[in-house]
C-alpha cells in the first residue's frame, strides 16, 4: 500500500467528482435542501392546514332533543358550533364533509338528569378526518362542562362540598429538557434521513468511478499506470466515502441552520423550547436536538458510511455501464430504507440481537442517543459490528477490483 498513490488517486477523483453535476446533486445539493424543504415546505404547509382547520367553526347537527330544550338551546347559542338543521341522511353529509359531526340527544335527557339517571349521548363523526375531529373535540368539551355543572348543582342541592366529587387534583410537570423532547419527537426521522442520504451520497460517485469509467474507457487508461490495484481501489473508495459523509455533513449543517432560522421564523428560540413541551402548535415542528446526541449519531454513522461506500463501489464495479450500475443500485435503496423505517416504528426497542442487524441497529441506537439514552453495551456492539461489516465490504471491493472478468466485463 502506497499512501502517495492513494492520495494522488483520491485527489484526482475529488477534482473530477466536483465537476460532475450528478455527484454534486446527490452529495451536496439534495442533502442541503432536504431539511429546509421538509421544515419550510412540508412543515409550513402542514401547520397552515391545521391552523386553518382549527379556525373553522364546525357545523353540527342536533338529533332528537325535542324534550330537552335547555341543552339544545345552549348548543345553539354556543359560538363554538354552527348548528344546522338535522336531516335523515346526516351520516352521508358527514362522509361528504358537509357536516363535521352530529350529536344524538336521547329522549328524556333533561328529565333523566333531574331524576339522577345516566343517559348516554352519542356523537357521530368521521374518524381520521381532521375537521370532523375538531368538531368532536368541541362537542366533548361542551358535554364535559355540562356534566361538571350537573355534578356541582347536585352537590349544592344537598349542601355538599364540591371536593366530594373531586377529592384531589393532579397536574403534569415536565422534567425533560427541550432537546430531549426534541430527540423523542424526531429521533426516528433523523437516522432515517441520514441512512438514505449516506447511501445516495455514495451511490453516484461509486457508479461514476467504476462503471462510468469502464463505459468511458478511462479505466483501462488508469490500469496502465504502475500503481498497485489496491491503491487505486482505496483512492477511489475514499472518494465514494467522501460523497457519503459529505451528504450526511451537509444534511446536518442544513438541519442546524434550518432549526436556527425556523425557530426565529416560527416564533423565536424561547417560544420554540416552550412549544416543544406544550401542546402541538406550529412552533413544535422545529424541536430542539441534543448536540451530544448528534455527535454520537455522527460517530455511529461513520462505519456504516464505509460499508455503504464499499458495497456501492463493489456492485457498481461489476456493472458494464452507468445505466446497468443504476439498475443494480436503485433497488438496493429499498433494502437500505426498510430497516430504517422499521427503526422508526414505535415499540421496537434495542436488544442484543437487534444490535447485530445492520442499519436497523443504527436506526434504533440513533433514536436512543438523540433522546438522551446511552446504552454503552449496545453502542459498543453496534459500533463493533458495523466496523466488521464495513471491513468485509471493503475487502470484497478490493478482491473484485483484482478480478479480470469484472474489470474487463464489457
Amino acid at each position: 500500500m502506497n499512501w502517495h498513490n492513494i492520495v494522488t488517486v483520491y485527489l484526482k477523483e475529488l477534482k473530477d467528482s466536483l465537476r460532475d453535476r450528478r455527484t454534486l446533486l446527490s452529495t451536496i445539493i439534495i442533502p442541503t435542501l432536504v431539511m429546509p424543504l421538509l421544515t419550510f415546505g412540508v412543515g409550513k404547509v402542514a401547520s397552515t392546514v391545521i391552523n386553518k382547520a382549527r379556525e373553522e367553526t364546525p357545523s353540527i347537527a342536533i338529533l332528537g332533543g325535542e324534550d330537552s330544550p335547555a341543552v339544545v338551546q345552549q348548543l345553539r347559542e354556543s359560538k363554538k358550533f354552527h348548528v344546522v338543521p338535522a336531516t335523515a341522511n346526516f351520516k352521508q353529509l358527514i362522509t361528504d364533509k358537509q357536516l363535521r359531526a352530529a350529536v344524538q340527544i336521547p329522549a328524556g335527557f333533561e328529565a333523566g338528569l333531574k331524576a339522577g339517571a345516566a343517559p348516554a349521548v352519542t356523537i357521530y363523526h368521521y374518524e381520521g378526518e381532521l375537521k370532523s375531529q375538531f368538531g368532536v373535540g368541541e362537542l366533548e368539551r361542551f358535554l364535559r362542562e355540562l356534566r361538571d355543572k350537573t355534578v356541582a348543582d347536585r352537590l349544592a342541592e344537598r349542601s355538599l362540598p364540591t371536593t366530594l366529587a373531586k377529592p384531589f387534583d393532579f397536574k403534569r410537570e415536565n422534567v425533560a429538557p427541550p432537546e430531549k423532547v426534541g430527540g423523542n419527537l424526531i429521533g426516528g426521522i433523523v437516522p432515517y434521513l441520514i441512512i438514505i442520504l449516506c447511501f445516495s451520497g455514495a451511490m453516484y460517485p461509486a457508479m461514476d468511478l467504476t462503471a462510468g469509467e469502464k463505459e468511458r474507457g478511462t479505466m483501462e487508461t488508469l490500469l496502465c499506470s504502475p500503481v498497485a490495484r489496491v491503491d487505486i481501489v482505496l483512492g477511489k473508495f475514499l472518494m465514494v466515502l467522501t460523497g457519503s459523509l459529505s451528504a450526511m455533513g451537509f444534511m446536518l449543517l442544513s438541519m442546524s441552520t434550518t432549526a436556527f432560522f425556523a425557530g426565529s421564523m416560527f416564533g423565536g428560540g424561547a417560544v420554540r423550547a416552550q412549544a416543544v413541551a406544550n401542546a402541538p402548535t406550529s412552533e413544535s415542528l422545529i424541536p430542539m436536538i441534543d448536540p451530544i446526541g448528534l455527535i454520537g449519531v455522527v460517530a455511529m454513522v461513520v462505519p456504516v458510511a464505509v460499508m455503504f461506500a464499499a458495497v456501492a463501489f463493489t456492485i457498481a464495479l461489476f456493472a458494464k455501464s452507468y445505466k446497468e450500475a443504476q439498475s443494480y443500485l436503485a433497488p438496493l435503496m429499498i433494502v437500505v430504507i426498510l430497516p430504517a423505517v422499521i427503526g422508526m416504528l414505535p415499540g421496537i426497542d434495542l436488544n442484543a440481537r437487534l444490535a447485530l442487524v445492520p442499519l436497523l441497529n443504527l436506526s434504533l441506537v440513533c433514536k436512543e442517543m438523540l433522546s438522551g439514552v446511552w446504552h454503552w453495551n449496545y453502542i459498543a456492539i453496534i459500533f463493533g459490528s458495523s466496523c466488521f461489516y464495513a471491513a468485509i465490504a471493503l475487502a470484497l471491493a478490493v478482491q473484485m477490483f483484482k478480478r479480470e472478468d469484472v474489470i474487463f466485463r464489457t
Partner: protein
Amino acid sequence: MIEAHHLTKIFRDKKRGEIFAANDITFRVQPGQIYGLLGANGAGKTTTLRVLATLLAPTRGTATVAGFDVACEAEKVRANVGFLAASTALYGRLTAREMITYFGRLNGMTDPAIRARLKQLSAELDMSEFLDRRCDKFSTGMKQKTSIARTLIHDPAVMIFDEPTLGLDVMTARAIVRFVRDCRGRGKTVIYSTHVMSEVEKLCDVIGIIHGGKLLAEGSLAELRQRFGETDMEEIFVKIVGEEGAS
C-alpha cells in the same frame, strides 16, 4: 526489449467453455524495432498486448518487458511501458494538463519534473493551445495528442500500441504513424497491433501474423514476401490465414 515464451491466455465462458484468446505465442522485440502484430478482429492481438501490459495475467507461459516478468513484476513492467489503444480514453472533466500531470504523478514523477517534461511534450506535439482546456471538448486529433503525451510523460522504454488509428481520419492516423516512427528513432522497443495492411508495410521491421490466438508466421516484410511468393501484404495475410483455416 520484449520477450514472450509460449504465452497463453485462456478465458472461461459458461456457454463456449475454454477460449484460447492467445495460444502458445513466442516472439521477441528488440530496442529500436517496431514489431507489427497483424490480425483480423478477434485474432488475439488485444489480449496478447494486454498480457504484455500486465492488464491481464497469462494463463501459461512467460513474458518479460524491459527485463521484468509480467506475472510477478507487474508494477515494474507498467512503469516501463507506454500503452496506447483505441480503448484507452481521456478523463473528459480534466484538462489536458491535469490529465498528463495525473499520470506523471502515478508514475512517481515529481511536480517540477512533470512540468519540465510537459513543456517539452507540449512543444513537440503542438499542444500549447489546448493544454488548459477540458478533454471532453477536444477534437479527435487533440485527444490523440493528449493520449500520446500521457503515454510518454514518464519516457518509457517500451511502447505498446493497440490499433491506435482505429476510427481516426487520415490526417490524425498519419500523425500517429509518424509518432510511432519517432519512438523507434529514439531507440524504444515498439509493438504495434493493427488489421490495416498498409500500416504494417509502412512501419514494421518484423511482422507477426496472428489468427485464432496463434502466431502463424513471423518475419520481416521481405522475408514474408519471399516465403509466400507474394508482394502484396494482403495476399500474404490471406494465404497464411487461409491455409490455417483450411487445415
